[in-house]
């Protein structure tokens, strides 16, 4: 199997190369087949790799030396252990479904081949990200998915808003990437290597109190450098995985076609940060301060974006903020160091959020690209099958048992509460409270979304929704099944499966059990409250809603509707000052100094001098011979001075 590992990322690359070059001239079904074949075959290969890992043998393959300069040696190698195997299955499995869905969704678009080619390139990058055996390879994938995300957000580039959204995603991610690189450099300074196995061997049980004597961190303790590295890496993750303070790009990223939102901005790419934390568990576990910061950031992100999702009217925006919120849950799970619970939520979230996005896509597709939920309503009767699967996805998101989201969310809540009880740290209790509140909000906005979209009366009685083609429906059915059974079927196998990667802590069994019971009860109450209040507010027309918005809910509604003014705050604190500085540099340094003085000035000078010289170059023979004679005399004069007179 190891010898075939390279095929998993290589097959989509092959599809990218074909569709990206000649795809426009190929028949569309062929383009689709080529594009789908890559991830689909990859999925089959991934199953074999998974089984091999399941039998206890990790798959590892090093193909070539990639970078070899001084002490830095990086091989181009792939590695599949339990963590990678789960991620590869997720990426190729959900990826294949979304590729199939994309065929139905995008086949009539003029840029169909380009779209499929970008999707394939994304698959390659994402697979390199999760399969690479070193941080530099992870970074290659990390940047690759970022590029594809940028290309796909701005896929319909004739609309300036889409292009701006793409740029926003790219630029915000660069901020995170900078921190990520800093973390990587710090780890290299400590361990002298960037391969996972080498890093773990060097840092897995480091003496954190030891003081470094050489290198860029001389004078600092190993523990403080590890904390710095972990903090930097986590800031990197807040970019890619949309956490405070860098989450702002993800809602705008919904400008891309809906399958992109499902694949990249819900199921796979945005979980890269979670994967990275799990991959470098041995670093984070030695930086408890970072873990505490992580749980606080994660739960605050979950709460804030959950509150914003309250009042969004764009069906995709609701799901986007919900994704940010759920990513917060995943990081909270990682912060407890019960890594498997974070990964579990990555999986279940991939199922139900992909389902919701694809379902939303089916609605948008059926309504001719209408995305405003206020203009929907009553779709239950027009699109009963879509309603069915969307409802399943919503129940899973809201955390209703026994759907998938319930299991993973409950596990994370339990683990956070356990960590809070065990450590007695108020931040953890606060985080637990915020997460429970988020669970309530999640149930609320999910219910609101379903009610406004599918219940009630059609906003436009003359509309004619068209039924989605089978290529779009089949992925929805599969994901719906996974959203139903994915929770209870995977809960305990996943934990066992990942045991080789993540050794368990000593757990106070009694307290652990107790914490989980309390968490279960609280979250169930939260879900019931959320669904009930949303149903009460939205199911019976606008009167009750308006009374609430004008009355007690005025402030929260206004804040939520305006996304807590975060974009405006960034605009005034970051964007405007940066623009001002850039304008200053542009006009003073670039325009005036470089363009006017250095470039044009020197050019004018050179031309002026040349014009003077040109007067001598008349072409007359006499001048030429005069110059030869004069030059000869000069040469001889210098030589005689140096050789005879000067001696």
């Amino acid at each position: 199997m190891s010898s075939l590992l390279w095929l998993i990322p290589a097959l989509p690359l092959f599809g990218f190369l074909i569709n990206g070059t000649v795809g426009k001239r190929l028949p569309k079904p062929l383009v689709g087949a080529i594009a789908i074949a890559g991830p689909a075959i990859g999925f089959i290969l991934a199953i074999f790799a998974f089984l091999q890992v399941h039998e206890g043998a990790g798959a590892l393959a090093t193909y070539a030396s990639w970078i070899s300069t001084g002490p830095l040696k990086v091989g181009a190698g792939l590695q599949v252990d339990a963590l990678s195997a789960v991620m590869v299955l997720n990426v190729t499995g959900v990826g294949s479904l979304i590729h199939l869905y994309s065929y139905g969704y995008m086949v009539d678009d003029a840029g169909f081949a380009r779209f499929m080619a970008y999707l394939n390139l994304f698959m390659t990058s994402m697979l390199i990200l999760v399969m690479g055996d070193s941080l530099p390879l992870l970074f290659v994938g990390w940047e690759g998915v970022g590029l594809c995300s940028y290309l796909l957000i701005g896929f319909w580039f004739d609309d300036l808003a889409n292009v701006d959204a793409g740029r926003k995603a790219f630029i915000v991610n660069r901020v995170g990437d900078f921190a990520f690189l800093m973390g990587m450099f710090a780890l290299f300074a400590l361990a002298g290597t960037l391969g996972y196995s080498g890093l773990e061997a060097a840092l897995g049980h480091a003496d954190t109190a030891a003081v470094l004597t050489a290198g860029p961190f001389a004078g600092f303790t190993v523990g403080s450098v590890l904390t710095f590295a972990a903090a930097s890496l986590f800031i990197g993750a807040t970019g890619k995985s949309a956490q405070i303070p860098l989450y702002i790009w993800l809602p705008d990223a919904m400008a891309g076609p809906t399958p992109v939102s499902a694949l990249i901005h819900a199921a796979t790419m945005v979980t890269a940060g979670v994967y990275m934390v799990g991959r470098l568990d041995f670093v984070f576990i030695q930086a408890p301060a970072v873990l505490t910061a992580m749980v606080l950031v994660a739960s605050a992100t979950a709460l804030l974006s959950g509150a914003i999702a309250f009042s969004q009217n764009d069906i995709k925006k609701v799901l986007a903020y919900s994704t940010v919120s759920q990513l917060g849950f995943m990081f909270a799970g990682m912060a407890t160091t019960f890594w498997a619970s974070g990964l579990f939520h990555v999986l279940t979230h991939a199922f139900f959020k992909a389902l919701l996005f694809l379902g939303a896509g089916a609605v948008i597709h059926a309504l001719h690209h209408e995305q405003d939920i206020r203009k929907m309503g009553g779709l239950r009767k027009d699109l009963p099958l879509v309603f069915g699967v969307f409802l399943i996805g919503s129940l899973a998101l809201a955390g209703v048992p026994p759907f998938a989201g319930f299991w993973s969310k409950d596990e994370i809540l339990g683990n956070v509460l356990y960590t809070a009880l065990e450590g007695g740290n108020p931040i953890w209790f606060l985080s637990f409270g915020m997460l429970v509140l988020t669970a309530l909000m999640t149930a609320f906005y999910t219910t609101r979304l379903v009610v406004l979209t599918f219940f009630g009366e059609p906003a436009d009685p003359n509309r004619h929704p068209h039924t989605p083609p089978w290529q779009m429906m089949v992925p929805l059915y599969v994901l719906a099944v996974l959203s139903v059974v994915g929770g209870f079927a995977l809960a305990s196998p996943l934990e066992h499966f990942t045991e080789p990667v993540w050794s368990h802590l000593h757990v106070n069994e009694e307290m652990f059990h107790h914490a989980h019971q309390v968490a279960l009860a609280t979250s169930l109450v939260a879900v019931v409250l959320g669904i009930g209040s949303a149903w009460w507010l939205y199911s019976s027309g606008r009167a009750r809603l308006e009374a609430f918005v004008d009355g007690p809910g005025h402030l929260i509604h206004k804040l939520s509707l305006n996304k807590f003014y975060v974009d405006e705050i960034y605009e005034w604190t970051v964007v405007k000052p940066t623009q001002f500085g850039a304008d200053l540099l542009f006009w003073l340094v670039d325009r005036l100094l470089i363009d006017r003085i250095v470039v044009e000035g020197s050019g004018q000078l050179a031309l002026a001098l040349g014009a003077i010289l040109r007067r001598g170059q008349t072409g007359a023979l006499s001048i030429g011979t005069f110059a030869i004679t004069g030059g000869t005399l000069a040469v001889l004069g210098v030589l005689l001075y140096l050789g005879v007179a000067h001696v």
Partner: protein
Amino acid sequence: MTTADWTAILPALCLITAAIAVVGADLWLKGRQIMLLAIISAIGASGALGLLIAHLRLDDGVHVAFGGALVMDHLAALLGVGVTVATLLVLFMSTTDVRRRHIGFGEYFGTLLLGAAGMLLLLGSNDFITMFVSVEILSISMYVLTGVTRRNPRSNEAAVKYLVSGAFASAFLLMGMAYLYGVTGSIRLDQIGAALSTGTTSPMLIVGFGLLLVGFAFKIGAAPFHMWLPDVYEGAPTSTTAFMAVAVKAAAFGALVRILMVAGVGRSDLWAWPLWGMAAGTMVIGNLMAAQQTSVKRMLAFSSIAHTGYGLVALSTMRAPYGSFASEGASAALFYVFAYTFMTLGAFAFLIYLGHEVPVAGRLETEWQDAEHLDDFAGIARRRPWAALAMTILLISLGGFPPTVGFVGKFWLFKSAVDQGHYALAILGVITSLVSLFYYLRVVVVMFMKDPIHTDEKTHWTIGAVVAFATVATLAIGIWPDAFLDAARKATDELSAPKAVATAPAPTDAAPQVALTPLP
């Protein structure tokens, strides 16, 4: 004393034989069968090329022949490869070009081959007689080739100008040789070197050496001995210009390096400063004048002067401002001259590629006109994107951008200057290179961003193939320069190794008759 090592002369003999065969066959064929003549010429040139490459590949040391009159070493072989490749490419172009310009095939091919033979002999010549005869063989061939389009007044004017200025230079050269012989009693470079390095203050010796420098400075087009060059390059048919710009320059540079490294090696304190001044002046004048031109052909002529200046930077900085001598600069110059062959030949070939027929005033016939003016290049990228891309690559190579050979060469030139502590000259070189970007990239801008003015160019695949070959070589040697860098290094190693020439039986006394012993 009469070692007849044919290795040294065989490549030149190939060319000479082919030249005689071509001229003879032309008498017989009376101006028909151009392909047959071209094939004969190509066989001769390929034979020479094969022998030279074999010498480089086999790496079989220095061959000294004919009593030390002629040598075959890495210098002669490396630049010889450049010369013969240029000859082959010009021959290839000529099969189309000569016909269009109504030039006699036989005389053209024969003169070209003889000129090339003169260059190979000049590269290997190790005494003054051989050197002067080779210079004259190549010069006279070039005078003829410059005026070969007999009906074209510009071509005629250029030939006369070249002849008169060339006569001046030859006179200086010969006078210098005579002085040196008169003082030392020898015509062999190594023996002149021995006499010079004794720390002599003999004015005759120094003047003689100075006149030698002047003669070759003229040939390579160094300021202030460059005045002839733009007019000749502009007036000559472009294929001749291309040949002159690369092959003559390579041969003359090679001979200059040999003179400096063998005859002048002990007295770099003498020649370093005049060359320093020439280098600075040549770079400044060449680049500033090139920026003034609206004729691309004339611009390339001045650019060729500028490149001579870069080569002189490396040669003049072989001696550090206060002290030591390092031969790295000579290697850099040799590599640069070799590398320069491809980009310049390609750029000139591109002018022919875009040429067109123009009506002759007062007559019904038309006349071939190469693309010379900037306007002729306007909007070429729209119609011929690949050709425009090739020319762009050639131009950025001339400007010294990676990944082309122009970058590698210039980098090494300036690096050798900096290593020797000659910062001023290196900085001047960089600044003038910056100026050069202005006029090189102006052509690119015109090709890609202006609307077409002419659309009547008559391209021919033979010319296009030469442009393509030159472009590929420019890129390929830019990306994999190692083999050629090594050859250039080896060339100067052989020159500085004392045994290189000592393997020849050196005369024991310095009496004139010893050095003038009849050749075999």
